[in-house]
Structures are given as C-alpha cells and as structure tokens.
C-alpha cells in the first residue's frame, strides 16, 4: 500500500524487513521507489524513508542518514542511500564514503529525475523545480515554510530572480499538471511541464 504524503512528510516509512538490500530514502521518493519496485519485481530491495520534511532542513540530513545506516546495517547484506547531495554541501557524500555505503549521484532529485547529464547541460539556473511529490505538497513544502500564507508580500523577495517553474512529472497526471500550473501562477512564474519519468533513479536502483 502506498503511504500517505502526510505520513511520509512527518514520519517517513519503516522497512518491511524483507529483502537483502535496504534503501534508505527521502520520504519524497517513496511512491516512486515503491512503483519501480513493483514494476520490476525487485523483491531483493527493502525500503525505509526518512521524513520528507528534512528537505527543508538539509543540515539535518547527514546525521539522520547516518543514524538510519547505523540502526539497520546489521539486518541487511547492503544499504543504498537514495538521497542526492540535497543541499548538504558534499557532507552526505563524504559521510556515506566513511560509512562504506553507496548513494545516488547528483546534486538533488530534480537533477537525477531529469538525468544528471541532461540537467547539467541545461544550466537553467532561473528555474524553480517541482516533482510530483512537491506539487502535491506545495503548501506544506513551499508556501507555508516560506511564510507566504501569512506574508504574500515576501513572494518577490524569494522568487523575483526566478523566471519559470518547471514541473518535472514522474507520472502523466492531468490533475497534477493543473495543480503545478496553479503553483506557477501563485509564484508569479511562467510554467513548463516536462515528463521525466524516474530518470537516473531507475538506472541507479536497477544496478543493485
């Protein structure tokens, strides 16, 4: 069963205890990973997620991943960390190296969903990205934490230098497309949708 976004945001997801390799992932990637697991019959992979709200506090990610690796490593043959750098400034990569575990390559999920090489080649630094999860959770992850629900006048201080919102669609869902378009309008940005699928996430997991 797919866990609710709210649960993934606040609490994360506990492992099922089945499979040789444990994926320690961001809660924002749970649906995508479970979908890939089911579609490919990857029964050797188990999944646990840290709360997606860590996305808002990147400085806490490295320690949270370390704690999860330490807690679970004796129960599995291997562990794979499904975080990119995610604003840790290289600290997560260095810690994973110290812990002897692999992780997904790339600066953040926006990059690996599109494919790290393609994303880097675009060099579109005036784009603000949303994924399926972030479109669904736009208010919880963007609007409210930035205080725009209470102080809409701050919008241009945050987004004045951006030009467009790019919705990287993992799934082809017209309702999410419409919601993402509305998010762009609320932020005062042009809108673009790209159907990325799972990009390098699928490639990385298929190699395990």
């Amino acid at each position, binding site marked *: 069963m797919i866990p609710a976004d709210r649960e993934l945001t606040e609490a994360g997801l506990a492992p099922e205890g089945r499979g040789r390799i444990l994926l320690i992932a961001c809660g924002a990637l749970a649906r995508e990973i479970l979908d890939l697991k089911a579609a490919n019959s990857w029964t050797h992979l188990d999944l646990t997620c840290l709360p997606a709200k860590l996305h808002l506090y*990147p*400085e806490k990610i490295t320690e949270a991943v370390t704690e999860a690796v330490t807690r679970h490593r004796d129960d599995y043959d291997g562990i794979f960390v499904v975080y990119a*750098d995610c*604003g*840790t*400034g*290289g*600290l997560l990569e260095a810690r994973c190296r110290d812990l002897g575990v692999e992780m997904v390559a790339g*600066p*953040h999920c926006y990059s690996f969903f599109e494919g790290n090489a393609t994303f*880097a080649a675009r*060099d579109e*630094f*005036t784009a603000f990205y949303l994924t399926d999860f972030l479109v669904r959770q736009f208010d919880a992850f963007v609007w409210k*934490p*930035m*205080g*725009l629900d*209470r*102080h809409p006048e*701050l919008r241009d*201080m*945050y987004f004045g*230098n*951006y030009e467009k919102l790019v919705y990287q669609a993992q799934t082809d869902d017209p309702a999410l497309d419409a919601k993402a378009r509305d998010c762009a309008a609320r932020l005062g940005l042009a809108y673009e949708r790209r159907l990325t699928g799972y990009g390098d996430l699928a490639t990385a997991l298929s190699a395990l």
Partner: protein
Amino acid sequence: MADDEIILSELDDEELVLQMHDDLYDGLKEEIEEGVRILLDRGWTPYDVLTKALVAGMTIVGADFRDGILFVPEVLLAANAMKAGMAILKPLLAETGAPKVGKMVIGTVKGDIHDIGKNLVGMMMEGAGFEVVDIGINNPVEKYLEALEREQADILGMSALLTTTMPYMKVVIDTLKEKGMRDDYIVLVGGAPLNEEFGKAIGADAYCRDAAVAVQTAKDFIARKHNAMA
C-alpha cells in the same frame, strides 16, 4: 483607538528604543520609520539611531534566527523594516561623516540567483559601518575582479545557495591568486550548503554562517589588518 495602543512619540528615548527593537522583531516597517524620525527630531545623531535602535534590534533578530526561534520569513520582514529605517538614515549618515570601517564588494556567484542571504549580510555590514558595493547575482569572476579593483575594496564577500554553484568561489579565489591579488583582500564566503571545511579548502579567509558572524569576522580581520600596518 484601542486603549493599549502605543504612541511612539509619547515614549521616552529609552522606552522608544526598546519598542523599536520589538517593532523590528515584528517586522513593522512603518513603526520603524516613525521611530527613526522621532529620534532624529529629538536630536539623536543618525549614527546613534542606526546602531542603538536598528542594528541592536536586528542583532536580537539574528540571534533568535541562529537559535531556531525565528525563521526566514520573520527575518525577512525584520530586514524589510530595518531597510526602511536605513533608507531614511543613509543620506544623513553620508552628510554627518559617520565612521567607515572598511569597504566590501559582495555578490552571488555565477549560475546562482539567490540573494536573500547576501542582501542580509550587505545590510548588516552597512549597519556596522562598512561601505557595501553589492554587485548582485550570477557574477562571473571578471565582474568580481573588476569591482574589487574599481572600488579599492578591503573585503570580498561571495554567496552561493547551491551545491552546484559553490565550487565557483574557488575559481574566483584561484584567479585572484594567479593575478597576484589574493593578499589584497579579505575573502569571506557564505551560503546554506557551505561549511567551515569548504571555506578552508577553497582558500577563503573565513566561512561565515550568518550575517552576524560575517559582521564580526569582517571587523576582526579589518582590525588585524590595521594592527599589521601599524
């Protein structure tokens, strides 16, 4: 009018300054503008209004942000209020010859458009008596170098929010070294994904985790520079 409404002009100086600290904390732009005007009308020097009312108030905001009591939206509102107060004071400070501590060129690196942290640092540096030349966002190395030379700056401040753009700071520092200019400037770096190790690794003089630290670090380095010259 509510019975408990505070009339700023009826407060004595000490009460008014404390009230301005509260108003700054609450991001009340118009109240700050009014408070600044009242203090000036009472004969306060622009420098005293700046340091005792605005900077002191913003220092409380900065400390509570550091301690996780305030968050970015509240800090931005406070910064907007302080900016409004400073807009009144700036021309007066120039006229009255307030002390200048040093000059800083500050900008966000190439490929990065984030400027909230940079703007906060710039404002607090101005509040502390530094002359700040803000060269904006998405700056290639040439633009930094040109501004440093043109402005005869003491300090270079570089900001980045992205893991992908922060390595560009090293490009700037390495270019300064190649041109034999590195020792002419104090180089301070900051931004959410940076840390002290990164600052050391790229050859910056210091990593500053927030605006208050940036101000203190800049003051310390300027004092050391002056001591070395004495």
